[in-house]
């Protein structure tokens, strides 16, 4: 649900933690994982609220609440970041192997791109 010009419209907050998309992973694979550069879409507002990150998209139509894990992914997707770099940084931060978190991180990035919060290319 989006912001809409209705008095009682409600804003949906989407939690991305459970979203998986193999298509995006495949697409990245086709282009070459190391060549994809990530950056927050211009105009995205970010606020840290408690353990979570809350984002408002550039058109102010959709807000997103990221759980702590997804918030960490978002925080590492700074302009110019590459998937492999993000994976390595997160793996180091969480003390795990990069391959262990690859699917979840890729899916999170996929969803953030789909929703227009993150740009990849």
């Amino acid at each position, binding site marked *: 649900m989006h912001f809409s010009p209705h008095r009682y419209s409600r*804003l949906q907050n989407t939690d991305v933690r459970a979203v998986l998309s193999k298509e995006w992973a495949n697409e990245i694979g086709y282009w070459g994982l190391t060549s994809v550069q990530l950056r927050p879409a211009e105009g995205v507002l970010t606020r840290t609220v408690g353990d*979570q990150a809350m984002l408002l998209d550039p058109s102010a139509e959709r807000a997103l609440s990221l759980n702590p894990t997804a918030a960490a992914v978002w925080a590492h997707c700074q302009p110019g970041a590459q998937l492999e770099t993000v994976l390595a940084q997160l793996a180091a931060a969480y003390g795990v192997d990069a391959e262990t978190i690859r699917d979840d991180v890729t899916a999170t990035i996929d969803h953030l791109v789909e929703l227009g919060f993150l740009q990849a290319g």
Partner: protein
Amino acid sequence: MRLTLQALGNVRQLEVDDRAAALVHLLSDLEAAPTATAGGRWHLHEDDHGWALHEDLALLGRADHWMPLAVRVLRRVDDVALDRRTAFVAHGAAVRLDGRVAIMPAESGAGKTTLAAACVAAGMDYLSDEALPFSAAGEQLLPYPRPLALDRAGQQLLGLPPPVVHDAAEGWYRASDLGPVAGPTPAFRVTDVVLPRRRSAERERPDVELRPLDPAVGAQALLRNGLNHFHDATAAFLTATAVATASRVWCLEYEDAPTAARWLSARWAAEGRT
């Protein structure tokens, strides 16, 4: 009878036939300062064709009795207060105890008005129901002590007398007839966001539970219950996140509102003393 009332900065004069004095009584918690200048007038009176309600020169409605028109005025007060307001307003109620200012964002039917009325009956100051209006700069809550509209179940639960002004679904009560109403402080800093959740009685669970939540849950609740976020979505987002960040956020699980209100009042009073 006349009353000059102020609804979030919008001043209106209400003039009613003495037989509809209950309407003036209901709205008297919103009485404006004597120096306020009214930007419009409602006139509820009887003429040769029955009862009529005028807003300035426009006829808003006619009826055989003053009651439906009084209800129309009560709803119109909310419209006047909120319609042109661009600063963020969320659906919810607010009360105060000592220095603590608690807001309860909630969807319709969640029992927020009954809980707010029970809190006032338990000695908390009434700040607002239905609307949680924040200041234009965000983060501060503006008091809007409109009458409380309770359904029959809520009236019975709180042991209230039958309402003088009512429609088929709800009856209206002046907050200061139920308990204290906050004085004319222009704005309050929110300290607590309480998400009310009614549940049925469960063996081996206490009647009332107050569980801390991540502040983000409070921000989400405010945004989900936004009444006017379409005016300025960015400001709504910034206000909701700032208020939640600066507050403690709780889930209040309870079986009945009066018990929950007394429990909450005792707990907060004890915390205030320490």
